[in-house]
């Protein structure tokens, strides 16, 4: 009755606050465990928000809650892996809700593949991105800007949650992100790991719409899924159908 088992629905949520996107993910994970939906990739863009992973350190947040409010930045503690990160306009945020049990039961592999999709998409813009051992994410080597020698900057971040091999959370790729917001989570102002964006690397403007389809394409290829764009309305309908009859089942 559902699309066949290699299908992956791609749903573009557009600009959506972190909270509602998180709720939708939770519902999708429950539905995915019940096989009520196929694999789903949510794409979205968040208004300014700082999120802290389960193992994150609160002290990595430099700004006070007062300052965050003043700057219009939300703060959420959340259940993904990884530490603290920032999401905001100009970023492609992807939340793959995949049943890894049907793809490959290997979280390390999964994370490397997310990186791979973004590395390949970046290469299409003539930018060579790569990995750094022990530092999950997508990195670009930038030339020396002073005494620090060769430096790498982070183009995309990854943080994943897994429940019975169903994935949630995912990746955040900086297309034209205002990088100054990352300063809010760099303590001491001592430059160490800096964030970068595709726009900054290219030196000219580039839109999310130019980048997102490429990442989607590579994810489909890598995970062997057939990517099908589906509207949010359709997704909601299917979810509600699944949720209504078993009102109190699930988590």
């Amino acid at each position: 009755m559902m699309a066949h088992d290699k299908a992956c629905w791609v749903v573009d949520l557009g600009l959506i606050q972190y909270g509602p996107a998180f709720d939708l993910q939770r519902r999708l994970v429950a539905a995915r465990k019940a096989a009520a939906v196929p694999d789903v990739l949510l794409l979205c863009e968040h208004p300014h928000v700082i999120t802290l992973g389960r193992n994150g350190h609160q002290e990595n947040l430099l700004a006070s809650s007062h300052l965050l409010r003043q700057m219009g930045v939300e703060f959420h503690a959340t259940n993904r892996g990884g530490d603290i990160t920032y999401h905001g306009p100009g970023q492609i945020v992807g939340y793959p809700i995949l049943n890894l049990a049907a793809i490959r039961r290997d979280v390390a592999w999964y994370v490397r593949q997310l990186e791979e999709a973004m590395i390949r998409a970046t290469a299409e813009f003539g930018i060579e991105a790569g990995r750094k051992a022990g530092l999950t994410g997508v990195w670009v080597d930038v030339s020396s800007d002073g005494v620090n020698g060769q430096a790498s900057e982070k183009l995309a971040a990854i943080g994943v949650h897994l429940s019975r091999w169903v994935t949630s959370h995912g990746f955040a790729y900086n297309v034209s992100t205002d990088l100054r917001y990352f300063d809010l989570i760099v303590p001491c102002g001592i430059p160490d790991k800096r964030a970068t964006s595709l726009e900054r690397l290219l030196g000219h403007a580039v839109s999310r719409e130019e980048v997102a389809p490429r990442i989607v394409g590579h994810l489909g290829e890598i995970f062997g899924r057939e990517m099908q764009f589906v509207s949010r309305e359709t997704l909601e309908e299917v979810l509600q159908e699944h949720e209504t009859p078993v009102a109190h089942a699930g988590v």
Partner: protein
Amino acid sequence: MSTNVIMPQMGESIFEGTITKWLKKPGEKVERDEPLFEISTDKVDAEIPSPAAGVLKEIKVSEGQTVPIQTVVGVIDADGAGAATVAPAPAKPQAKEEPMHLGEPTKAEMAKPAPPAPAPRPAPVAAAGASAPPQRPGTEKVRSSPLVRRLARENSIDLTQVPGTGAGGRVSKRDILSAIEGGGARGQQAPASASRPAAVPPPAAGASQARLGEQAHAAFESAVPRERMYFGNYSVEPMSVMRQKIAEHMVLSKRVSPHVYSIDEADVTGLVKLRNQKKDEFERTTGSKLTFMPFFIRAAVEGLRAFPTVNSSVDGTNIVYHRECNIGIAVALDWGLIVPVVKNAEEKNFLGLQRAINDLAERARSKRLKPEEVQEGTFSITNPGVFGGLMGLPVISQPNVAILGLGTIEKRPVVVDDAIAIRSMVYLTLSYDHRVVDGAIAHQFMGKIKHFLENWTESIL
């Protein structure tokens, strides 16, 4: 009947996991497949469902501990009976010698079929003759993770001589750590019965080390092998992120900038008198406390104007001369150190400086500094004197090329006009980057500051 709860393998290249949270307490009931605990590996958090229904009888591995896969982390009692026990506090991690007990395969083994039985534990080796190398099934090649291979390399350990207790005879991190601790397979087999009670705890910096990359790595190097640090009674605490940043910055600064130190002293009897006279009035009329810091900043600005090299940064073979005098003031915090910056100190009058310092210090202590307020400093001042230090020789705060250290102000007998007089004196120290600042400049710069302090003429109100 009891069911062992094991650390599942979450991927082919993953041989250990960290328990981040137990979702049930000992004694609590749990349903089969209900989330029981959470683990983290790499950037992934995963909830692990319970392999059986019953009561969580025992937690063997507590939150924050990292253990090899297949380790029994807890026990579920299907009958719901039995006293609940908790693992010892994480201060003595990995003390238990039963990581590899392979219970019946359970649902929690989501990853794969059970790996081949582990190699015999080191203990039986004693019976078989202490010199016998451990049996490893099948292949000659030692299976191990990159971390283990790195540890082996760094400690000159021959991996083939380390008994592997991990899945399939793999040499786990714990194996290599005990090999390192035991003086290891550096040629000789580690003694089968080590007398030490606990293996070396997981490196507190381990995770962050990986996180911080090559450059910062230097900050967390050890001068001696780790096993020489753990003796007697100890506790181990991870560095806070701020502490790690400070460590990195200091190592980097010392590595990049050849530090030279010059010492001078100034007679601040006049300033002490001035402050004592004016401090009540100053506080009454401005609402700000009157401290000595604005005097020193003013003097430093005079020095920087006269010797712009001291107010520069080094970019490769270029010297960046800063037109602004943005003075970083080191503020000691209970949890570390931060250097907020008084921007454009050259444009501020005395009161403006005093207000800026009070404001920055107060907000530094309440964690309300904005990122830009700790950036773009061109010179810095630190004041070990407030803690009674006679003088200090500070590390340069990058990307500055010099930092002024202030000693404590105290009365000392000094020679004035061939007579011994009691004067309020302060030691001034300058740490500077000899790549661009030479001793001649440094001492003239200090002379300027000294002269300005000793011949103060500006009004402070």
